[in-house]
């Protein structure tokens, strides 16, 4: 129960390892300067296919608390844990969230709904308190303040969606990370039929997407993974839809990018969606 004195910058700060950038952001907001957060999958990284480095094992070994997403997001984690031999407690930030399904598995992108994000924050707050009870008051205060910010964000998102005419609330996208967002806020994310993002699409694939967009009257196209942006423009031109901007789902950006924090990421996404879908 007594925390060991740790060789950190802030005296007595808790060493916490977060699995990826979004969770890292939550932990920083709840822990403030009472925690030292190290993130395994940093900004712009791909948490689905991350290949851990030896340095990561060391980070875990030195940590007092490990916070992960769970729901199958970090497939590379069990082996890393084994090799690091770390004894720190692991908090699954999605505890208590009823998961949606993505194909036959659980959809791990639960943070896309701001309401879920509040649950993440609550879980993280509890874990920090348990790991370092001396700072419990600070943690709870921070968590409370951050939860209020998230509430404001939630209202923002709903207001923005309300601006979009109901018939326009759908996009076509190869992103499969917006299930929770779609379910929470009513914007439909339609997957293009039969297209894998890696391969070059055949004429049939393109024709199918065009027909799909036309018949479902989808107003915006978010196909930035499609390889050739000119192809996306062509599809948009032929269907009368708009080419949407870039949506961020699985990682924050670094300081120079548009989404260095979770709240900014959600704001960016909703702004991009409303400008594409609004009249």
């Amino acid at each position, binding site marked *: 129960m007594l925390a060991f004195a740790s060789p950190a910058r802030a005296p007595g700060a808790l060493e916490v390892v977060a699995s990826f950038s979004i969770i890292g952001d939550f932990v920083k907001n709840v822990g403030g300067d009472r925690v030292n957060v190290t993130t395994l999958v940093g900004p712009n990284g791909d948490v689905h296919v991350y290949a851990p480095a030896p340095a990561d094992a060391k980070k875990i070994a030195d940590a007092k608390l490990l916070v992960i997403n769970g729901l199958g997001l970090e497939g590379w984690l069990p082996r890393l844990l084994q090799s690091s031999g770390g004894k720190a407690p692991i908090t699954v930030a999605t505890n208590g969230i009823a998961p949606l399904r993505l194909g036959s598995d659980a959809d791990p992108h639960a943070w896309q709904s701001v309401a879920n994000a509040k649950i993440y924050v609550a879980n993280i707050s509890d874990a920090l308190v348990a790991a370092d009870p001396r700072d419990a008051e600070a943690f709870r205060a921070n968590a409370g303040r951050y939860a209020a910010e998230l509430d404001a964000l939630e209202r923002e998102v709903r207001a923005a969606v309300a601006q979009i005419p109901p018939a326009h609330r759908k996009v076509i996208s190869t992103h499969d990370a917006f299930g929770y967002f779609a379910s929470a806020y009513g914007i439909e994310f339609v997957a293009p039929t039969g297209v894998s993002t890696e*391969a070059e699409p*055949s*004429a*049939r694939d393109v024709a199918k997407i065009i027909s799909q967009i036309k018949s479902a009257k989808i107003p915006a196209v978010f196909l930035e993974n499609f*390889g050739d942006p*000119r192809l996306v*423009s*062509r599809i948009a*031109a*032929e269907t009368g839809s708009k080419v949407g901007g870039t949506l961020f789902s699985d990682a924050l950006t670094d300081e120079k990018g548009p989404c260095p924090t979770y709240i900014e990421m959600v704001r960016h996404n909703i702004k991009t969606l409303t400008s594409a879908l609004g009249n």
Partner: protein
Amino acid sequence: MIHDVLIAPFTEFEFMRRALAAAIALSLGGAPIGVFLMLRRMSLVGDAMAHAILPGAAIGFLLSGLNLFAMTTGGLIAGFTVAILAGVVSRTTGLKEDASLATFYLASLALGVTIVSIKGTNIDLLHVLFGNILAMDDQTLLVVAFNATITLLVLAVIYRPLVVESVDPLFLRTVSRAGAPAHLAFLALVVINLVNGFQALGTLLAVGLMILPAGIARFWSRDITGMICIAVIAAIASGYAGLVLSFQTKVPSGPAIILVATALYVGSVLFGKVGGLIRQIFPAPHLEA
């Protein structure tokens, strides 16, 4: 039913009409060039050129970021430089055209890789530069059509010196000074067609619709004019059938067109009137005189 398969895709979808227009334009400009390339034993120049343009594209990228126009212009300049230098060296020294081109394109590629690595970016510049026939916007269509027109016009002018230079260069040297300019003009046409072809349609299509139709034509005609006509027709047919194939299946458009062209080529190797394998194995009975 036939109508559904062969005509409907083009009446229903604009991107298909544009793709067909691009394929036709590419065939009109590229196929005649391909015949001359093949006859002058320069069939691999397409691949060489795809690499030779790198320093130009890299400099364009350094100056203007991922601006297609800047990178294409840079690519054109690099391509011209390599082609003209190679042409001049092969004309004034004993080094043959293919070796001359090889040395310059390798030097160019090395230069390009150096420039890219100094800048420290890991974007695959060439990948960005290469387009897709299904993505024909107005500007790209114009470029492709413009290419075809320029190519046909210039070829018409340099046709005779080019032919004579290919069959009996020494003779041309003794009767005319048109040999060198015609040769360089031809190289310039090659560069324009290739670089603009890459940017609009990707390397596979740009090079493929130049070289494969030439190979096909070789088996059906003994005369260069006939070859050029057959090459153009073969290229257009491949473009059309390839697009239909890509429309009915999951085969991407570029490979589909090239696969059709390849099938035509194999058919020509086997059944061609001029030197086809079947004719060699089962020759028709000889004539009386």
